[in-house]
């Protein structure tokens, strides 16, 4: 495993002095999004949606910061690998190839009130939408060596529904591979029903009123 270098603390450095740092022997688990590549060569790439960088397979993603004053994650800088505790807080882009997942973060970690930024990360599991084919999911799972699940609702819808059910979201975030698979399978009918009901309500609201022809 990659052992990150200890961040030096010096005068004028962009690091808050928060006292003795508690070391934990496990990674921090948080929700985040990735985007799947559309081109044939990148269809098994998990791509950081903002930076557009592919996460490496079978090795840790290491954060990079252009600032010479600190190594990621700086306390007063936005650098580092992101994750949040509440999947409902994730932002989504326009791509229908974005996926939801849980990432393991470790190394130097900055904890905020809603999530974390860290120096090292690797996907824990991924949930794709129904638009992603079985073959692509299988190839993704083989490449990264992590479970890739299929959601019957778009990942952004799943994230929003999990955001409203934090107990279930936390159980998924911290669960074992088997527990995650079981919980997703158990919850999917309910999530699909809610999504379908929401879509039907939206269609009803948007349907134009039938207006009779009127002679002028």
């Amino acid at each position: 495993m990659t052992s990150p270098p200890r961040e030096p603390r010096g005068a004028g450095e962009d690091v808050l002095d928060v006292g003795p740092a508690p070391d934990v022997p496990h990674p921090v688990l948080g929700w985040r999004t990735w985007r799947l590549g559309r081109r044939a060569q990148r269809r098994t790439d998990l791509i950081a949606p903002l930076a557009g960088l592919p996460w490496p397979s079978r090795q840790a993603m290491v954060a990079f910061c252009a600032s010479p004053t600190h190594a990621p994650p700086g306390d007063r800088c936005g650098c580092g690998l992101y994750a949040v505790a509440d999947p409902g807080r994730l932002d989504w882009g326009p791509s229908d190839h974005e996926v939801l997942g849980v990432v393991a973060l470790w190394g130097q970690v900055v904890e905020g009130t809603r999530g974390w930024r860290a120096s090292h990360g690797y996907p824990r599991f991924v949930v794709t939408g129904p638009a992603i084919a079985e073959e692509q999911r299988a190839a993704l799972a083989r490449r990264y060596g992590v479970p890739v699940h299929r959601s019957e609702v778009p990942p952004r819808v799943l994230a929003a529904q999990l955001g409203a059910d934090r107990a279930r979201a936390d159980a998924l975030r911290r669960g074992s591979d088997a527990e995650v698979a079981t919980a997703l399978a158990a919850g999917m009918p309910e999530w699909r029903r809610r999504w379908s009901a929401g879509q039907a309500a939206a269609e009803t609201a948007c349907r134009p009123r039938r207006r009779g022809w009127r002679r002028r």
Partner: protein
Amino acid sequence: MVHNQPLVRGVPRGSVLPVDIGPVRQRFTAEPVSSPVPGEPSAEPVIELVRDEPAHDAPTHVPAEPAR
């Protein structure tokens, strides 16, 4: 939320952050015992077995030499 600090390689200043993690609460080091990366060796703690019995061929008591 728009950032004006360097974020990660390839992200221009002024772009939108993916998510807001809120004000910093604490900073710590997480060093997992088992690697989150599949296939990587785990950083298992090394346990040294220390034998607390004296060896049979070693003298347990050495008589003091008489003072001259």
